[in-house]
């Protein structure tokens, strides 16, 4: 059988450092203490939300670089993305940091797709240090995909809250004592006909389940092999559906299954189904998971970032919501 969409990294590139920045509301996150920088102002002192979005990304990149004692001119590639039209926040951040750049879009799954691309460039020996990651800014995303921020529409319990956060990783050739990228799986676009943009978890759950199963069968792995299998931003609703779908396929769903979106804000009912956004999975994967790996709590983890590939236009024209999930497997030896 041809292993479609499967990636194996013989040189096991490492995540040598991470940089995570977040907005003021994200202080409510259970993981807030782990973020490198939390701004006091939603606009990070900038004039517009979009500039704040770019600033968060810039700062995250600079933090990650400083942790590996580097400056932007030491980095070979910048592989980042966000959810805003034409990815201007990432483009503008790339302008400031000045690292050779490719913008990547996999919606909220960009956190993992960028890591995979960075690992590939490292694997073929073209990169000594690649910065990969994703970001989202609540106000900027909300106004593009939904309504003006101050509009008083009622959201259902299935709706998720786009986080204001940016998370990047510095991917380097294998370094002892750092989490290493062993393999990954590129997702297929899955669409089971969901149309409600206020229930993205339900739209993304089938994509997450599909990638999980393809990763396990393709790489010949079992749930038992992992210390944690974390999805990106399915939220409470989507996470339940994902566990049912995985269970239906014969996967034993245990407490190892976690979802960054569900856990991000804890049990706070104000955030309805939980967190979402490209920054959600990036921030949690690169703090909570990486920290626990470096502390030795986790030896092998599977991270599955999920993304809904819709636009406000496609939704208004009555299209269903196609979704994608990319998986990356990290080990600590």
């Amino acid at each position, binding site marked *: 059988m041809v292993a479609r969409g499967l990636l194996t990294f013989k040189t096991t590139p490492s995540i040598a450092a991470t940089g995570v920045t977040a907005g003021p509301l994200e202080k409510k996150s259970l993981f807030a203490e782990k973020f490198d920088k939390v701004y006091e102002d939603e606009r990070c002192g900038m*004039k517009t939300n979009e500039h704040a979005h770019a600033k968060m990304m810039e700062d995250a990149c600079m933090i990650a670089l400083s942790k590996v004692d580097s400056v932007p001119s030491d980095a070979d590639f910048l592989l980042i993305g966000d959810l805003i039209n034409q990815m201007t926040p990432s483009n503008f951040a790339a302008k400031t940091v000045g690292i050779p750049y490719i913008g990547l879009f996999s919606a909220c799954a960009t956190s993992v797709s960028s890591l995979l691309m960075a690992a590939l460039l490292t694997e073929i020996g073209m990169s000594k240090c690649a910065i990969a990651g994703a970001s989202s800014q609540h106000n900027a995303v909300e106004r593009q995909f939904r309504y003006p921020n*101050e509009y*008083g529409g009622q959201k259902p319990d299935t709706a998720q809250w786009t986080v204001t956060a940016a998370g990047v990783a510095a991917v380097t050739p294998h370094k002892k004592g750092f989490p290493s990228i062993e393999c990954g799986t590129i997702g297929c676009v899955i669409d089971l006909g969901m149309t409600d943009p206020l229930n993205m978890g339900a739209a993304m759950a089938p994509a997450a389940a599909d990638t999980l199963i393809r990763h396990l069968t393709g790489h010949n792995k079992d749930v038992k092999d992992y210390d944690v299998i974390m999805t990106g931003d399915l939220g409470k609703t989507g996470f339940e559906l994902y566990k049912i779908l995985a269970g239906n396929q014969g996967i034993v769903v245990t407490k190892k299954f976690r979802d960054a979106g569900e856990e991000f804000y804890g049990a706070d009912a104000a955030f309805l189904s939980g967190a979402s956004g490209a920054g959600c999975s990036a921030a949690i994967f690169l703090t909570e998971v990486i920290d626990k790996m470096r502390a030795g709590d986790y030896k092998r983890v599977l991270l599955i970032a999920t993304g809904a590939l819709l636009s406000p236009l496609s939704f208004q024209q009555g299209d269903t919501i196609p979704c994608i999930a990319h998986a990356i497997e990290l080990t600590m030896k």
Partner: protein
Amino acid sequence: MDEKKYAKLEKDTSPKTPLMRNMIFAFLTGGTICLVGQFVSLFYMTYFDFTERTASNPTVATMIFFAMLLTGFGLYKKIGQFGGAGSAVPITGFGNAVISAAIEHKSEGYVLGVGGNMFKLAGSVILFGVFSAFVVALIKTILVKLGVVSW
């Protein structure tokens, strides 16, 4: 899994819309807004030279002013999440739709931003409101001409 099966699973798993709770909250919120409106109306009738009919214009303007303040201070969206239709249907909801869009698009300038987008949400309310008023007026005119009702 096919789409139909998944739609059923999604329906069974996702939290149900709490209809009863939403209706009660909408009733309370909408009722409170209308009660305030009634007081404003009475105020104009008592202290100024307005009749019940003519007081409606300054009352509407005052209610929209309140909605503007609440929207600007970030409170109307909280009322909206709690009150649902109760805060969307009264004139304050219309005001909120206009004002929130105006605030949001200020970053693109006054002409193309605020001016061009202010009625993005409320535009359809105006269009279909005016159109339905026209249809109702047409029906009534015909009925008056036929002698069924009088003005």
